[in-house]
């Protein structure tokens, strides 16, 4: 099956790049450790921030990795060549989704294990839901990265889409200023940004022992945003070019 072969190919590429794999695992854990010591003197704050960061790191990292990986497919001619073969566009897009989703699961697994076991992260809900939402966030970052790569001609441009597409979501998701305290128009913007719902879902896991309806709704919204971004990304894959 072409989809699974494509997933395997992307994971093989990742495997040859040992440093990237090491950084995928190490960077979130190091940053969480940094947060732990930063908020050492303020009890409870680490729980709040680390929980959200477990969802935000995979989003940002997968966005960056995918937008560069897809840009490479475009600039090295492999994309054009793939599109002359029996491969369908969905094979490629979902191939990326599966491969990086898997990488994100490993990453979120390590980061969560560290946060819960060594850094005493405390949430009411189970860690499994945190990992689940983190993976959904990673796939969201991946889908937006695939889309963003269509608008970049060089790596310089591609990395700059990160602040354009990711940072506003991060600023408005309720992490820095609670959403209720924002001006109405900022709340309205926040309402249409998918990361807002991912963060809310994580906060639900933090506050409730059992998964809540709000959490599942938010998870569904993130999944829906992934589908929308992937469909839009599929529209940017052209078999015929000028």
């Amino acid at each position, binding site marked *: 099956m072409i989809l699974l072969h494509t997933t395997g190919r992307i994971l093989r590429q990742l495997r040859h790049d040992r440093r990237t794999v090491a950084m995928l695992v190490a960077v979130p854990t190091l940053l969480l450790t940094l947060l732990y010591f930063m908020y050492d003197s303020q009890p409870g704050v680490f729980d709040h921030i680390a929980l959200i960061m477990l969802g935000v790191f995979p989003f940002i990292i997968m966005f960056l990795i995918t937008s560069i990986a897809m840009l490479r497919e475009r600039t090295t001619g492999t994309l054009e*060549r*793939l*599109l002359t073969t029996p491969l369908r566009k969905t094979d490629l897009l979902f191939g990326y989704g599966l491969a990086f989703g898997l990488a994100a699961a490993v990453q979120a697994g390590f980061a969560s294990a560290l946060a819960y076991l060594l850094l005493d992260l405390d949430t009411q809900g189970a860690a499994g839901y945190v990992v689940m939402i983190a993976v959904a966030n990673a796939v969201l970052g991946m889908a937006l990265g695939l889309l963003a790569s269509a608008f970049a001609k060089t790596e310089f441009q591609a990395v700059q889409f990160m602040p354009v597409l990711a940072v506003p979501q991060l600023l408005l998701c309720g992490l820095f200023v609670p959403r209720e305290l924002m001006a109405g128009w900022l709340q309205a913007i926040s309402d249409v940004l998918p990361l807002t719902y991912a963060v809310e879902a994580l906060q639900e896991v933090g506050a409730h022992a059992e998964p809540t309806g709000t959490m599942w709704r938010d998870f569904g919204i993130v999944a829906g945003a992934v589908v929308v971004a992937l469909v839009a990304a599929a529209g940017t894959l052209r*078999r*015929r*070019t000028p």
Partner: protein
Amino acid sequence: MTSAIEVADLVVHRGARPVLHGLSCTIPEGSVTGLLGPSGSGKTTLMRAIVGVQLVRSGTVTVLGRPAGDAKLRSQIGYLTQAPSVYADLTVRENARYFAALYGLGQAEADAAVRDVGLAEAASQLVGNLSGGQRSRASLACAIVSKPKVLILDEPTVGQDPVLRDELWAQFRELAQHGSTLVVSSHVMDEANRCDRLLLIREGLLIADDTPAAVKASAGTEDLDQAFLTLIRRQGSGVPAPRATGETSEVPS
């Protein structure tokens, strides 16, 4: 002999620049056709149009009885791009196996293609660590792995040593004998002599479409380089070129 590829009145613009101006040609099945012409003449554009990745302004390209780019053609066409289009962060073998898998083929076919391009020794090396010539052969392995009915090769032998070039041409010939139709672009005239037919393109116009022998005969010289110069001048001046070899000696070479 039936035709595998038919191009009729093909007009292609890239950006604001017209690249092909109403080009027509027919490429017979089971043949090796050489596509020759200076850099920028439209060779790659014509190949892209045959593969079906080029947006065309007007005209038609028919491959195996279907419009170029038709979904059903994708399993029957192989395309070697001019710049190697393989994954630099995979080994040669991994690249070939992935492209084989896209055609529903297994590891045996992939490994055979790697052997066919003379990379058996380098199969487990990352493509990114190979020399330019090896890298383009890795790309070639991925194009021939499915033994497609139509094989479009954009400068497959650039940067290869003469022995290897000879071996690659023997394989192109073998593929054609098994019924594949090959279109091979080249800058090297001794390769043109190995083709069944030649298409000479200059500035988006077809100035020769014949067998190598006929091209040489019509230009009145045994040397293809000279023959092309003669044909280009004849086209440019609009008057018949001199037939005697003595008179072509004024052509700088």
